[in-house]
């Protein structure tokens, strides 16, 4: 319990620090949101008026204080550029991005674990070479390449799936899934490659250990030895990597999002930065950081389930 408390406390502290840094850095950037809203239709008086009405003339510390107070009281304010409540905007985009992150991770794991185990079991045989080259191909080619290939195949040639777009899973899950499938596949392929390599090397190490030999000597079937005993011991590092990847994906899927016009968190963060929408930048960075840290915490907790030797203290 004290482990959990400690971790939560350190997460909270880190978030406070991150919010201060983002606030300071975004205010150093040239230009502001009033200028972006008016574009080339602005004149100095109109700009001054808009700045005043947006509260941009207040001292930085006041603006920051207002933001912190809002965050704590659940009022995250409106995006200055989109004029929509930030919580609403974030809700949509988090759900959409979470869908492709989860889906791509599921696709990646479903393929990577069997493939990695298969390669480890047949180490240095043709199966291993095949699995390694597949993984190498996946790692070497960027996800936008897979994206383009999939658009050509599934959207253009076969016409099964839409080439672009996004839907909110909370309002129409079926549509959301249709839009999410291609981006998830494109992301999943790259991820799969990493995880396959990870699974293979972890399994190779485990398969050389004494307890595996003992299990085999006891006359357990090869299937039980590999999938119950060896894999259970090898899965730890794979989980760690997968957990890190989920957090990383959340903030970095912008390329795939752009390619499929799947406007999720990556897109939102980019728009916020591009338009100097400080409250929105704060909120997106904050959420991404929180998600990354919470997922890592979750992975640590899952360890206990997978490996009974670990105690959290």
């Amino acid at each position, binding site marked *: 319990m004290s482990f959990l408390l400690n971790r939560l406390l350190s997460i909270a502290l880190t978030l406070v620090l991150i919010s201060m840094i983002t606030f300071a850095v975004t205010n150093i*950037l*040239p*230009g*502001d949101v009033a*200028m*972006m*809203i*008016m*574009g*080339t*239709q*602005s*004149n*100095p*008086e*109109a*700009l001054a*008026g*808009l700045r005043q*009405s*947006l509260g941009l003339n207040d001292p930085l510390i006041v603006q920051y204080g207002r933001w912190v107070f809002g965050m704590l009281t659940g009022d995250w304010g409106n*995006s200055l*550029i*989109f*004029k*929509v409540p930030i919580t609403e*905007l974030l809700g*949509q985009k988090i759900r959409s991005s979470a869908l492709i992150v989860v889906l791509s991770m599921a696709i990646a794991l479903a393929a990577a674990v069997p493939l990695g185990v298969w390669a480890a079991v047949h180490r240095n045989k043709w199966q291993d070479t095949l699995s390694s080259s597949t993984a190498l191909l996946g790692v070497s080619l960027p996800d936008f390449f897979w994206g383009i290939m999939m*658009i050509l195949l599934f*959207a*253009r040639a076969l*016409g099964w799936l*839409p*080439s*672009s*777009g*996004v839907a*909110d899973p909370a309002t129409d899950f079926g549509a959301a899934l249709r839009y999410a499938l291609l981006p998830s596949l494109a992301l999943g392929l790259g991820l799969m490659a990493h995880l396959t390599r990870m699974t293979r090397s972890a399994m190779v190490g485990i398969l050389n250990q004494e307890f595996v030999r003992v299990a085999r000597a006891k006359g357990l079937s090869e299937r039980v030895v590999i999938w119950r005993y060896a894999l259970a011991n090898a899965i730890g590092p794979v989980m760690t990597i997968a957990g890190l990847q989920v957090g990383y994906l959340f903030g970095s899927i912008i390329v795939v999002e*752009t*390619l*499929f*016009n799947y*406007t999720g968190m990556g*897109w*939102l963060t980019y*728009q916020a930065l*591009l*338009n*100097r929408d400080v409250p929105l930048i704060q909120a997106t960075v904050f959420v991404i950081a929180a998600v990354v840290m919470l997922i890592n915490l979750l992975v640590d907790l899952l360890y206990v389930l997978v490996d009974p030797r670990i105690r959290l203290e």
Partner: protein
Amino acid sequence: MKRRNFLISTAGLLGSTAMLPLFTSTASAQETPVSGGTLIWGHSETVQNLDMHQTGTASTSRVLQNVHCSIVTVDKNLNVIPHLAESFEVAPDGLTYTFKLRNDVLFHNGQKMTSADVKYSFERCKDPATGAVNFEVFNHVASIETPDDLTVVVKMAQVNAPFLSRLAENGAGVIMPKDSGPQQGTTPIGCGPFKFVSYEAGNAVVLARFDEYFEGPAYLDGVIAREITEPTVRLTGLRTGEFHMINDIPPDRMEEIKGDSQFQTVSWFPLNFDFINLNNDFEPFKDQRVRLAFDLIIDKELLLQGALWGQGALTASPSYPTSLAYNNELKPRAQDIEKAKALLAEAGYGPGSLNIVFKATTNYPYHVEAAQILVEWFREAGVNLTIEQLTWADWLSQVWVNKDFQMSMMNFFGLWESDFLYYSLYHSTGGFNYRHINDPVIDELVTKARGVVDDQARADLYKQVQQRVYDEVLDIVIWFRNGSIAAQTKVGGLDTIVHPNGNALNFHKVWLKA
């Protein structure tokens, strides 16, 4: 058909100097429109703040054109004509405007439009606290009276001749229901042919037909404006049939789409004009000979081919070719590098002595491409041109707001109104004068124009402004860029879609074949 006539007549106006057809369409012959269907449009830009008063972006006004109506509007030749006001009258002294409103206009909430809504809308735009982009339109307004439900009388403290034409745009002239201000940014409400249904940032704006529209209901049940900023994604969506139409075809792909019988294309100009800016406060550019030399270095025709793949038409004036004020005697200067070198030498800048930084924004990739083409010509003339690429935020902050640049390039969308154009851009105190232009002759002309009520006399003054800008080379105006739309062949009525301002798209008469 109206629009087509407008474009043909415009071609006549420009005579043989019209370098490209003003409106070309591969759309098939006229058929009888049918009602029904929802049109899915792959829109090239992201819509932002939906409050028509506060928004300055071409993308938002392009969509909201279908939701809102203005008190007056413009015809094909940009003459002000009645719209929500069935008639208007300007007193001979130019100080009183009387609008008689239509009796049959309903807002989307079912409420009838009255003079109170007009008063509310004008006062909201005028109020600095609203943060309205066009608030200065109402600067000289002394009072807004509503003697009865259908009459609005605007009294001016001093003559402001451009007032009426500024009201012909949805920015300053838009009429919103009384007290709807706070909701306009998220759920805009107006009296246009389509009702606003929903908006998901970065994804789509959904519009539905408003059956009580005062000019008759639209054919389409609705329009979904999907926001697809990547041109290639947009084209893919058109090819896979996900979109009925897309706007802003990348110029280098135009020929490919035109040649495809699966699609129809529409292109028109001007979508916007582009000009190359010289900072008039930068020492070398204080000398007219240097500015003239810079103009002479540029081969505009080649630049148009290189940067825009020919998808535009050269011009020496930024006035819309359809407007009364367009000075068609001005011709783009032909390239003459020898003469340019001589002028530069005369001004004291021998070969290699001028190092110029050209700030181009990546927001308009063709500006960067144009700059890259310029470098070589300038090198031939002995001028070192260095390109600095800026994001939109950086460009706005460095060039537009801080006026910190030597040479740059910009465009303007929908800036057809002469006062807005010339006063804002060229008066020494104009809001858009980011080039530090300070020319007493222009100041006098544009100030005088504000007090001249007669349209033709006023247009003549603006023609003199254009002549002055041209002679003094205060800017190097280069071209009108084409707007373009590609659509599936089942979309009808595309000849009516483009607003005379060249930017807004109007879906009132667009329909889908069964």
